Every structure is written in C-alpha cells, then in structure tokens.
C-alpha cells in the first residue's frame, strides 16, 4: 500500500469518526457554514463539533503549514482529503475571506511574525476578515482609489470610503488598499490590515436590486492604523492586490463552471410543461453553449492543474461563464412566465427565481467587469496593441 493509500484509509476513518451526519447535508444557505470570528455563534452542536475537530487536526486549511494552523498536507494529500470529503458530502468546516484571500497573500508576502499570528487566527476561526478594495469612484479602475492614509510617524490616519465590502458588518478585521503616496498611482498604495473596531470605522449594508446583500459601504473617519500593520512593502500594496485578483478570478472562473455548463431545456420543460417552439429553439441554442462551456471548464481545470493554462485564461473563463449565466437566468425567467415575476409570494419562495435572475446581473461586474476581462484577453492573450 502506497503512502497515499494509507493516507486515504486514515482520512476515511477519521472523517467517519468526526464528521457528524448533519454536516453531510448539502449547504442551503450562508448559515449552514461556520464563518468564525469574534461574534460567531454555532448554528448547532454538530457544526461546532465538526469545526473543532477540523481545527484541531489542521483541516480548516489542510494545505497550510502546521506552524500556521494547517495540517501541512502535500498537494496530493490535500486532493485525497478533498475527494474523501466530497465522497461523503462533508460541508466545509470553516469559510472565510481569510482562508481564500488574505491567507494566500500572507503566505506569499507576509513576514514570519505576520504569518504566525494572522494565519493561526484564521485557521482557528478566531478572526473573521473582510476585504476593502473598491471605492465609489474606482470600480474597474481599482488603482485610482482615493482612501488616503496620512503618515503620522508611528501610525497612519486613514480617511475615505470603501464599497462592496462583503460582510463588513460581521467582520473583525479588514485587509484594505490605502493610498499612501498621491504622486505615484501604482506605487503609492499600501495593503493595510486593521481592526474594524478601531474608532472611526463604520459600515452600512447595501440593498441590491435583488434584495438584501452581504455587501456594505464602509467609512473611515480618521482611523488610526499602526505603522506595522501592512503586507508586503509600504507603497507596494498593488503587487499584493494584483496577486490576489489573479487568485480570485481563477477561483471564480473555475468554481462553478460545471453548474454554468449544465443544459436547462430539459429542466424547464419539466417545470413548465409545454414549451413555446421559439423558446424551445432558444433553449436549444443556449444548451449548446452551456454544454460546450462545461467542457471548457473541465479543460481549463485540467490545464490549470498541470500549469498548461495561459495565465490570462481565467479572464476568458470569467467572461464567458458570467455572460452565460446571465443568459441562463433570462431564459429561466422567460420559461417561468408570470409565475416567476412574483417577488414576495410563497409560491416562489419569496421571489427566488426573480431575485436570482437579478443577482446574476452582477456576475459580469464583480471581480472584474466583462469589459475589463475583454481588455485583458485582447492585451495579454491576443497581444493586440495599445491600451
């Protein structure tokens, strides 16, 4: 038996012993997953037990080194763990932007001290993080951000406003892009970290056209940030941000390409009975695109695994996937007719189809607009000249 086989057997036994049956049910909403943080509560005992077992084993962040709260698994072992968890339908023991975003940035850019402190806090679910990138005046043009940190010797005084800070109202700390040099657009941004309880920080949730959302506006009014709370170098925060953006797009583009790649004609026929013949044709044309995209998703992930994918390919995946998903929901609305127009009725579970449809409109905006994706494809893949 190879080491990996042994590992698989052990993992299977460990999961059997430690993953409660309730934690093997599909995730239906946000609360079904533990997000950690100072204010966190467990939805039930099973969630607590599952989280604590994983935390103690280092399985909240299995591939991180042990000294930072992980299990130090090799890529092959991590894959086995993922497979075994998928096999029994185990829920993630802990979700957070700390795991997906700040963690990778710290692992790449952080000092030893930072890694020890922050990564352990993330891994143990003690601190919940949010991300402060976008500002009202800087959407696609992220680097034009205006939130300013004035240098006061041993600390900065930060003033400005962030937008689209997901769960800012629930987070303990923020990682945040702050301008620290007004004379250099790219080399004048610092990647700061600070406590959301610092005086001067306030948040306000954003109501979307689809209804309530995790997004907030976040305001900084003379917020004092100690001079040692940054990642990378001072004025070089853009390097960290770029690294994370690439990471994020790869995740977004890979994540649900399989869901996006499913045909919908058959489902809609079942749901709605008869299909109008012209709509049927539209669905058929959509399904061709959707099934083809699912193959693309598979190919992309296969290529990423072995480093064959063009580094800018995630932009293409994000563009095509999000545009497809918007079209999918347009067709779902068309097939559903007046029934799915309902906004607050029980029959539609509080307007779920309509709210999902509207929510998809953000797909091609958040995480880089379709226009930015097309710019990147034309520049980095097709190598077209000019801006």
């Amino acid at each position, binding site marked *: 038996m190879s080491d990996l086989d042994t590992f698989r057997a052990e993992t299977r036994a460990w999961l059997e012993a430690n993953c409660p049956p309730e934690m093997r049910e599909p995730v239906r909403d946000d609360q079904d997953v533990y997000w950690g943080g100072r204010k966190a509560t467990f939805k039930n005992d099973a969630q607590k037990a599952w989280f604590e077992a994983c935390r103690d084993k280092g399985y909240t962040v299995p591939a991180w080194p042990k000294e930072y709260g992980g299990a130090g698994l090799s890529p092959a072992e991590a894959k086995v763990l993922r497979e075994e968890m998928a096999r029994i339908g185990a829920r993630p023991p802990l979700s957070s932007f700390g795991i997906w975003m700040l963690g990778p940035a710290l692992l790449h850019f952080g000092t030893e001290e930072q890694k020890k402190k922050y990564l352990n806090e993330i891994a143990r679910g003690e601190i919940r993080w949010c991300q402060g990138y976008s500002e009202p005046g800087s959407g696609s043009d992220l680097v034009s951000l205006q939130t300013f940190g004035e240098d006061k010797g041993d600390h900065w005084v930060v003033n400005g406003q962030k937008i689209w800070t997901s769960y800012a109202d629930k987070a303990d700390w923020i990682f945040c892009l702050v301008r620290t040099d007004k004379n250099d657009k790219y080399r004048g941004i610092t990647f700061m970290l600070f406590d959301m309880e610092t005086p001067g920080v306030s948040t306000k949730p954003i109501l*979307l056209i689809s209804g309530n959302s995790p997004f907030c506006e976040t305001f900084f009014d003379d917020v004092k940030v100690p001079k040692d709370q940054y990642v990378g170098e001072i004025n070089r925060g853009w390097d960290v941000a770029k690294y994370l953006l690439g990471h994020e797009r790869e995740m977004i583009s890979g994540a649900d390409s399989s869901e996006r790649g499913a045909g919908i004609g058959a489902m809609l026929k079942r749901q709605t009975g008869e299909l*109008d013949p012209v709509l049927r044709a539209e669905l058929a044309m959509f399904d061709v695109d959707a099934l083809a995209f699912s193959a693309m998703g598979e190919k992309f992930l296969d290529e990423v695994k072995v480093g064959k994918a063009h580094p800018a390919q995630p932009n293409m995946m994000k563009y095509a996937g999000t545009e497809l998903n918007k079209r999918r929901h347009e067709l779902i609305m068309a097939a*559903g007719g007046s029934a799915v127009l309902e906004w607050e*009725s029980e029959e539609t579970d509080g307007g779920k189809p309509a709210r999902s449809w509207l929510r998809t409109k953000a797909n091609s905006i958040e995480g880089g607009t379709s226009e930015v994706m097309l710019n990147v494809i034309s520049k980095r893949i097709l190598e077209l000249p000019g801006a």
Partner: protein
Amino acid sequence: MPLYHTDDQTMLSDTVGQFMAEEGAIAKQLRHWRDRDCKDGFGHALWKQFAEMGFTGILVGEDDGGLGMGHVEAGIVLEEIGRNLTPSPFLTSAVLAGTALQHGSDDLRGRWMPGLVSGESVFAVAIDEGAKHRPERIRTRAEKSGNGFRLSGRKDFVVYGGSADMIVVAARTSGADDDAEGITLFAVPKDVAGMSHDAVRLVDSSMATHTTFDNVELDGDAVIGEVDGGREILNKVLMAGRVGAAAEGVGVARGAMDMTVDYLKQRKQFGKLIGEFQALQHRAAHLYSEVEIARAVTIKAQQLLDAGSEKADLMASVAKAKVGKAAGLAVKEGVQMHGGIGMTDEYDIGLYMKRDRALAEFMGDVYYHAGRVAEMSGY
C-alpha cells in the same frame, strides 16, 4: 399617413412628457408607493390627475365622454409612462378594458365608462390562464344559468385585479378549450360572490392577482358584445394591449438608454469618461439603432390599428416582439454600463430592468410573438 407624429400629436407628447416627468416621476410614484408597500401598487390621486388631463378617456368615444382619440395618442401617454416607470392602471383600464367596453351595449358603456373617464374606477382584464400568455386556449367556463351565467375557473397575471372595480373576463361559453369560437367576454363587478383574489407583488412592484371564479353568478347584461362572439372583441383587446405594452416598452427602453448615455458622459474610469471608450460607444450606438427601430414599428402598428387595417394584427406582434428585444437590450446594457452602482436599489436603472421584465411578459413575450409572426406569415 407619414410615420411621424403630427403637430397635434407632438404637442400632446410635450404636454404628457412634462406632466409625467413632474407628477409621474420615479421618486414621486414608483418608489413612493413601493416603499410604503402600497397594496394597490399605484396612487389613486395620480389616476385622478390622469382623468383631469383627459388621459383616462383618451380612447373613449366622445359620445361616452372621452376624447375619441386613437392608439397613436394612447401610445404617446404610454411611452411617457414607460419612460418614468409611472405605476398606473392606464394600460389595463383605459386601453385593455376600455377597448373591450367599446364593444359593449349602451347600458354597459353607460354603467362603466363614466367611472373610467372620471378616474373613479379602475379596471383589469383577466385573460391568461397559466404562467404564459396563450389566449388561444381558454378554459374558464361560463355556463348558462337562468337569465345569466355561472362562471368558474382560474385566471392568472390579472394586473391590478385586486384594485379593480370591474374585471373583463374572457370565458368559454361553448366549445372545447382550444376552439377559436365559443368565447364570451364578461364585465365582472368587484363585489360578486364567488370571486376571490390571491394578490401578489411582482418584481416591478406592480400588483397582480391569481383570481378564482367559483360559480360566480352573472347577469346577462354583464356580457360584452354577443354570447359566443367574444373572440373578435378579445382579439381587438389583445391587439390594443400588445401595441400599448409595446409603446410603454419603448418608453422604458428610451428611459433606460437616456439614463445610461448620460452616465457614460459623467462617469470616469482610467482617467477618461467611460463614454470615450469605443467598445461602449459602439454598443450604445447599436442600442440606439435598435430602440429607434422598435419605436418606428410601434408607431406603425398604432397607425394600422387606428386605420382598422388587417395588417394591424401582424404588426402588433412584430412591435411587441421587437420592443421586447430592444428594451431587453436597453436595460441589460444599462445595468452593465452602470457597473456596480447599477446593481444597487438606490439607483433607478435597476427599476427599469424590473419593469421591462414584467412588461416583456405581459400580453405575450418575444418568443410568443415571433412564433405568431411565423404563423401569420404562413410558416
């Protein structure tokens, strides 16, 4: 007749435009009633103002106290309603039910027209059964009963049904579900026993009902036109409704487009106004072209309808389908070009998207009407 507005129509358009921009504005009407969770989904005071302006009776004959104008004029009102997303029962009452009532007896018109013209009454129409518009199939049945009828069945997507003083109901008085003939239209008052509403708020904050008729007893004089002869009237109601919804859709499209083009001239990214980016310029120019074309065919359909042309039916479907495409494009491009801010409830562009969705569905969507165009063309 030339395919542009006459001087009188242009004047009407200016008047309506100014009125609607002031009194029917998004903040004053749509957001106002929505944020108060108004169960009507529109303001009765505005409906009265519509009456004062003469809008409510715009299609009503002069003998019945109306202005006796045509669908071009009604379309002018609807385009401004669309542009300002003004919630009102104009389309259901003045256009749809009003068209049906025109075919009613003197008594029937005498009973209902004054309320419409004065803005006292609100009407609805109950045609759809099921989630998609398929008026070829009518299952709701009205059986002869004494001197009158007994009505049973269920209607869906009855816009403003819960607020209506009278609902025009298309029911089957003979024949099978899919027969063309055997349809009768009834003017059903709100207080009849056996009629019940399941009211729902729609995505655009308008209200609609699922309305159930459980052995509703109706007098013989509730019949609009002839018994079993309702299909022809229904077709006229449908044409008026389709062309009317198209006109409102043109307004939605133009409103969304104008707001978006304005935004392109104000928003800066990468050190430029985003309207300087050629990719957005070309998309905006394409959108302009689509909206212009949709508007042209809508006016064409209005004129044909007013002229009583037999081409009106075809062109009504072309207009409804084309507007469905163009307005759909306008709101999608609108939200996308606004970026994140366009996703927030605070900005109006999302409201255009919501209204477009409901309007696209009302009186048949682009797929339904494209299919009709094919059928009427013989393929």
